[in-house]
């Protein structure tokens, strides 16, 4: 709908102000247009700039294939959860339960293997199923009962986290036991080396997930419907989109992605620990916002979130290597969040 309005407005403008037509295309307005049509461009520019700055300050200690792929490893989990968060935020929702779904799924994968004696593959399938099911409940409550996403996922966050602690008794399953008895649980921790760059299967999963989702959002009917529901659900419904079905599918997909994040988490930390992922919801929202995805729905790209997550990773590692107090990381990331939203608002003005 907004594209239509935009086209109309520019038609009107063109008709009325023929003489000043050239004047409207200043460098700044061209930039504004470019940024508007490519929402991932701003975070990409910030990412490249921050790599260049930290590279100049730190040299090869930072600007090496090793350090740069280490950042990928460090942001993979937040990035995977961020992909789930992006989908939900594009529907003008928010998912506060992502981290809790992740940790509960990982605990189920571990405990079903070690406490119930299930084969690891079955336990993993159970973990993924639980994640999907929690997503379904979220989606069902939001789409069918019409409860606000913030409230539903705020409640689900507490429920999933409490279930996680009650079920696990806060018991950690040690990395050595998993390695000996159920190495499949650590699958995503497997790493390989390409000329100094170290990749884990978790990182590969993260990158593939982002590419698949970016394709699905841009080139499938489902993806266009996600944007439509986020932009104007009533208009989408009037034009024949099954808005409730789309919403439920988005929250279920978010749940299953978070469950995969739980599996990747086991690979990264080796063990199954019920205390992990406590701030993944906020960190994923941070990546999404810095990545230029609008909290009001219907705008932004998942590639932007990918760059957003990497920006946070570059700042964290770069500042630590510089020896800065950890507080500076939070301070700068806070400034980035506010800056990102300000830039987003400025870009939006292009269509008015």
């Amino acid at each position, binding site marked *: 709908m907004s594209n239509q309005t935009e086209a109309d407005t520019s038609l009107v403008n063109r008709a009325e102000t023929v003489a000043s037509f050239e004047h409207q295309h200043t460098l700044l307005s061209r930039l504004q247009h470019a940024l508007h049509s490519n929402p991932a461009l701003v975070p990409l520019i910030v990412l490249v700039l921050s790599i260049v700055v930290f590279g100049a300050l730190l040299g090869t200690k930072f600007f090496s294939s090793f350090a740069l792929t280490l950042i990928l490893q460090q942001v993979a989990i937040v990035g995977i959860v961020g992909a789930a968060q992006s989908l939900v935020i594009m529907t003008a929702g928010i998912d506060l339960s992502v981290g809790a779904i992740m940790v509960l799924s990982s605990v189920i994968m571990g405990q079903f293997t070690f406490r119930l004696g299930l084969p690891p593959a079955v336990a993993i399938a159970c973990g993924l199923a639980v994640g999907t099911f929690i997503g379904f409940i979220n989606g069902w409550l939001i789409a069918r009962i019409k409860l606000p996403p913030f409230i539903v996922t705020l409640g689900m966050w507490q429920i999933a986290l409490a279930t996680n602690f009650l079920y696990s008794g806060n018991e950690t399953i040690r990395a050595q036991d998993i390695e000996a008895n159920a190495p499949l649980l650590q699958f995503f921790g497997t790493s390989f080396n390409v000329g100094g760059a170290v990749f884990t299967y978790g990182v590969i999963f993260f990158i593939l997930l982002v590419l698949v989702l970016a394709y699905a959002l841009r080139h499938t009917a489902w993806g266009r419907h996600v944007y439509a529901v986020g932009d104007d659900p009533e208009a989408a419904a009037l034009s024949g989109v099954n808005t409730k079905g789309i919403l439920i599918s988005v929250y279920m997909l978010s749940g299953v992605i978070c469950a995969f994040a739980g599996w990747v988490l086991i690979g990264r930390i080796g063990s199954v620990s019920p205390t992990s992922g*406590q701030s993944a919801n906020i960190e994923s929202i941070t990546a999404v916002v810095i990545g230029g995805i609008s909290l009001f729905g219907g705008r932004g790209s998942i590639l932007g979130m990918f760059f957003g997550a990497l920006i946070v990773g570059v700042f964290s590692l770069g500042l630590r290597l510089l020896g800065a107090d*950890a507080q500076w990381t939070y301070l700068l990331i806070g400034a980035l969040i506010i800056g990102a939203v300000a830039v987003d608002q400025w870009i939006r003005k292009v269509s008015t």
Partner: protein
Amino acid sequence: MCLAALTPAAMAQDVSACLITKTDTNPFFVKMKEGAEAKAAELGVTLKSFAGRVDGDHETQVAAIETCIADGASGILLAASDTSAIVQSVQQARDAGLLVIALDTPLNPIDAADATFATDNFLAGELIGKWAAGTLGDEAANAKIALLNLGISQPTVDVLRNQGFLQGFGIDLGDPAKWGDETDPRIVGHDVTAGNEEGGRKAMENLLAKDPAINVVHTINEPSAAGAYEALKSFGRENDVLIVSVDGGCPGVANVRDGVIGATSQQYPLQMAALGVEAIKAWADSGVKPEPTEGKDFFDTGVSLVTDAPVEGVESIDTAEGEALCWG
């Protein structure tokens, strides 16, 4: 004041006590509760247990204190989530004649409670510091040390373990009340872990990126040590780095046995709670308050170094003994 004088006597025939911990899910506090319940049953004390919902849940603890006062309890055993903010509520309880004992976590100021039963965290750190220095021998002079702490707010337990470790290792402390101001070139850096595996791995990676030659790692607790080990493994450095830790939980002691952690300092939550219940019983029966350990401002519930590679001059127990005493 009148109430304060009356309460112990009035309660003598039916002594009741409250245990307020940070959470009901952390194995450390679960063990503490077990210890308190067993001792209470033995002494015929009625015990009511309360816990915050999550670590840092201060308001639930305040409500629990108010409940205990209303309930006419003789005393409260408290592991405070917020050591400064709880002081006013503790004062209310003491004014009402209850004996308040801080368990594990000293209040700020420490004399806000009638007594504190806790591990000597500085000593816990010192033991692993001495062990690490002794294990390295002459190489200790060229050590490259990574320090994995709890949080940027530098909670007291974090500072005490960190500074104790550095002192034990033979490094000059700057201000002993905070970490991070030391100037010894052997320190590669400090990072924070939130006390879990995830944070341990990331912090270790950050410090290894700073200096891949790190060969000594101090971790605030055993979960963060397990995370640090995963990071070292990904660098192929797991066999030539010494990791030391504090806590003595069962998974941690098992990691010492398996060689993941070189040595850990074990603390005794069950002991803290059992002694606490005894102290409340004594207060209710005869109005006697517990005395702190000589030379300290708290009652020391003991700490032991657990390792299978003992160092001369540093007293330790082996992992078999550590596993018999572990918690969680």
